[in-house]
């Protein structure tokens, strides 16, 4: 089956690169804000004209360092205007920016630097500089490091270190000398040139560098800005990792294309407060964010006065009934509309304001499945929250939900210009203007992923909903397995159902080539900890709380509820979980158990916790395990625990059938 949206027209010649867009924005939107960052408690702001000056100062600074056309410049830092400038300036001098996850450990960073052969790096602070110096002998190509925050840098040998602001000042001094050279290089950049190399989070194996051209990136930006009517009046909060394709597309490509303002939070911990102050109109957050926010709202409501709780419940219930219909433009009775208006004045308005979501015009979530109740909760309040489906190789967008056609369990229709095909085994393939050029220095992997006609395998299994043409994703194609009795197992599908309970942070379901399904569960410390506090349950550590019999009981109830819902679907009947255990530590990216974008690495977990897995299948009631953990500074330690393995009730097939008939 193939589905396609209206193909998009080509990019105009004067807007097919970042230097050209910068020029256009500085001329057209010169006095409008382009970047804001909260520093020293105040929002600092740069207009497009000011940003233009800063970026060119840095570009000239690059030339003083000897940056050549085609050089790679690694960028590692949290979201700050200076790093977006570093990427744009790179293209101005004909170099290619390579954003790197700033929380990656030295070894991961070395791999990326080694692979792309970066000669320059623009980094945030001492921490990043230390990491690079630590692996300096593995990356001999690296010549110069530019750092933004001078704190603690005094003692370093400055032969290959440069202060970002001083480099800009040097560039400003030489602006006239370099004018011709800069112009020559910037004009030489066209749509077919590489815009960026983004390293995938590496669910399997080492991260691969995805090469995206200006055409890929800007065409996608153009199409998607038109899809959602994004204009220069939008405002977004840039808080997701800069090395992630999403942030690159939202905060670089779309922002430059539409000319809207990118706001950078003061620190990662102040993101919520900054969101409220900025009043973003266009917002992306992973489902985890919305879950966490809802949990914290609910926890705070528990502590509110009785009257407030009553009012909250009454109007939220009303919103859940009416809100989605209002948002989709369906007809609603006048009385209900009026009551919704009251609700907005009394509850929804203040709530949205407190959460910083009150001005959102277009909101997206993606990355993993979002709980239907959570999704509906935000939509009920009047937030136009939608889902999209995408990946790095597609420059994010494969499908997205149009306004007014939003469902909790689908990911929408193909994005403009995207063609989609479903293979016989259910795997989803796409072809689009955003389809990546290649994996950097890895022709083999490129050929495996992208065929000669440009179709790319997503690795996800899914199907189009009959009737409305919306795509529904069930699982990773390779993770969809079979039990020994031959019935289908979709672990992710079951994990998502489990994770919709606020008490459960992560779940890992096993079953492929085994007799029945089992699960590892991670409790959510915030939710369970709060519950423990309210019920006077004392605990000294995560481990102790996780092993508490009452917590086990609650989790068992959740597992059994999921089992009941799975029993309803004949295709997924055998995915019911027979045995489970609650893990003694949180799965963590530092231990290699998750990717940096917090996706579970199934195979690694399977190997690392092999004894636990055996216990789930050999009938034992408890199991002792020692686990190595990595602290944030890279040191390692060992934690040990004896875990209880529990049986969960499974809904019997006969009983189910009888009940159904």
């Amino acid at each position, binding site marked *: 089956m193939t589905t396609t949206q209206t193909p998009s027209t080509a990019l105009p010649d004067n807007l097919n690169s970042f230097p050209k867009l910068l020029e256009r924005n500085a001329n057209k939107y010169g006095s409008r804000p382009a970047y804001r960052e909260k520093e*020293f408690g105040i929002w600092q702001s740069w207009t497009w004209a000011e940003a233009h000056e800063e970026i060119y100062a840095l570009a000239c600074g690059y030339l003083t360092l000897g940056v050549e056309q085609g050089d790679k410049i690694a960028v590692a830092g949290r979201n700050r205007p200076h790093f977006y400038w570093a990427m744009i300036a790179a293209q101005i001098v004909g170099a290619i920016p390579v954003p790197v996850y700033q929380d990656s450990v030295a070894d991961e960073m070395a791999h990326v630097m080694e692979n792309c052969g970066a000669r320059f790096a623009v980094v945030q602070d001492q921490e990043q500089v230390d990491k690079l110096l630590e692996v300096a002998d593995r990356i001999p190509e690296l010549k110069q490091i530019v750092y933004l925050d001078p704190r603690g840098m005094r003692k370093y040998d400055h032969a290959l270190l440069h202060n970002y602001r001083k480099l800009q000042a040097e560039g400003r001094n030489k602006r006239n000398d370099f004018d011709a050279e800069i112009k020559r290089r910037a004009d030489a950049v066209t749509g077919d040139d590489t815009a960026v190399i983004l390293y995938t989070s590496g669910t399997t194996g080492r991260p691969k560098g995805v090469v995206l051209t200006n055409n890929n990136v800007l065409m996608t930006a153009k199409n998607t800005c038109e899809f959602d009517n994004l204009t220069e009046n939008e405002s977004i909060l840039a808080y997701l990792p800069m090395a992630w394709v999403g942030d690159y597309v939202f905060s670089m490509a779309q922002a430059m294309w539409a000319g809207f303002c990118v706001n950078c939070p003061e*620190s990662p911990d102040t993101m919520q*407060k900054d969101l409220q102050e900025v009043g973003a109109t266009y917002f992306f957050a992973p489902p985890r964010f919305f879950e966490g926010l809802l949990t914290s709202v609910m926890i705070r409501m528990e502590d509110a006065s009785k009257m407030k709780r009553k009012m909250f419940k009454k109007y939220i219930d009303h919103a859940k009934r009416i809100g989605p219909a209002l948002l989709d433009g369906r007809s609603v009775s006048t009385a209900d509309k009026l009551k919704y208006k009251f609700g907005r004045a009394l509850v929804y308005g203040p709530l949205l304001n407190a959460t910083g979501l009150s001005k959102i015009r277009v909101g997206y979530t993606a990355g993993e499945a979002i709980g239907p109740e959570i999704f509906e909760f935000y939509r009920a309040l009047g937030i136009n929250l939608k889902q999209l489906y995408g990946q790095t190789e597609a420059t994010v967008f494969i499908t997205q939900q149009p306004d007014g056609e939003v469902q909790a369990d689908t990911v929408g229709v193909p994005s403009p210009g995207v063609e989609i095909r479903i293979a016989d085994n259910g795997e989803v393939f796409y072809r689009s203007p955003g389809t990546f050029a290649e994996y950097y220095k890895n022709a083999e992997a490129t050929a495996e992923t992208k065929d000669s006609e440009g179709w790319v395998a997503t690795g996800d299994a899914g199907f189009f909903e009959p009737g409305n043409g919306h795509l529904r994703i069930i699982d990773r194609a390779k993770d969809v397995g079979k039990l020994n009795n031959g019935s289908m197992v979709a672990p992710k599908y079951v994990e998502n159902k489990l994770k919709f309970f606020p008490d459960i942070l992560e779940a890992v379901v096993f079953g492929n080539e085994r007799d029945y399904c089992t699960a590892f569960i991670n409790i959510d410390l915030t939710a369970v900890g709060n519950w423990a506090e309210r019920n006077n349950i004392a605990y000294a550590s995560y481990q102790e709380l996780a092993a508490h019999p009452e917590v086990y009981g609650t989790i068992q109830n959740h597992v059994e509820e999921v089992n009941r819902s799975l029993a309803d679907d004949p295709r997924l009947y055998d995915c019911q979980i027979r045995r489970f255990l609650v893990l003694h530590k949180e799965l963590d990216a530092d231990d290699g158990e998750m990717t940096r974008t917090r996706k579970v690495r199934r195979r690694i977990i399977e190997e690392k916790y092999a004894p636990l897995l055996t216990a789930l299948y050999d009938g034992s009631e408890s199991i002792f395990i020692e686990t190595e953990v990595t602290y944030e500074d890279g040191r390692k330690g060992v934690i040990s625990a004896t875990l209880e393995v529990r049986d969960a009730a499974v809904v019997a097939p006969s009983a189910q059938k009888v009940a159904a008939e």
Partner: protein
Amino acid sequence: MDGSSPITAEPDSYTTEDGRKIGGVVMEMKNITLRFGGVTAIKDISFDIREGEVRAIIGPNGAGKSSMLNVINGFYHPQEGEIWYLGKKRGPMKPYEIARQGIARTFQNIALFRGMTTLDNIMTGRLTKMKSGIFSQAIWKGRAEAEEIEQREKAERVIDFLEIQHIRKAPVGSLPYGLQKRVELGRALVAEPSLLLLDEPMAGMNVEEKEDMSRFILDVNEEFGTTIALIEHDMGVVMDISDRVVVMDYGAKIGDGTPSEVRNNQKVIDAYLGVSHD
């Protein structure tokens, strides 16, 4: 080296292992003795604190460390001995004189205004620098306004430095212990002291909080060149972060020197391992 050898044996200034230049003497204690009635808290102690160094005072419980800090601070005036601070001999002082001498401190048990926000607490550290009158502040015009902006900027720089932006508006009473300690350090720091006294900055902290605090102490010392004198229980931390260490036991000095010198000093080892005292 005998730990109790006189400090005059030291050259006037020295360079630390990590390359920091340590300057001349900021404060010199000469033969200090402090008594409370019949109890002698400090017995004939002499040592100096040099510009730009991290100077630690350690010792077992009841060794007289806090009393020593209060003497340095000017809160107690010793019965015997001389204190030279910034080239001047110091006599007994009134509390406001103490506050204005350029020595800031933190407290062992945290002495913040619990109901006030982090920002307000840190702003109180600037009080001695504010000159506008009560009337001007009440009507919020002229000097008061300009001054507030100036002070706020200093406070914000400290907030940024200590990475506590996320708790700027939170009442400190609601904060975890480690953060409260950091706020207290912020309040001392914002006064731009020439000598910063830290009374058990790591007390009651977990390993991670201790590491954070050590990092901040070293950063303060390096970034602002602030001279720091600290009292600490945790030997490991002290040995890692200080340039020179004074060891006290039962009110007397039993050792003085670099961490490695002190670590090998037999008297110090005895004091910590608990050899019986006659």
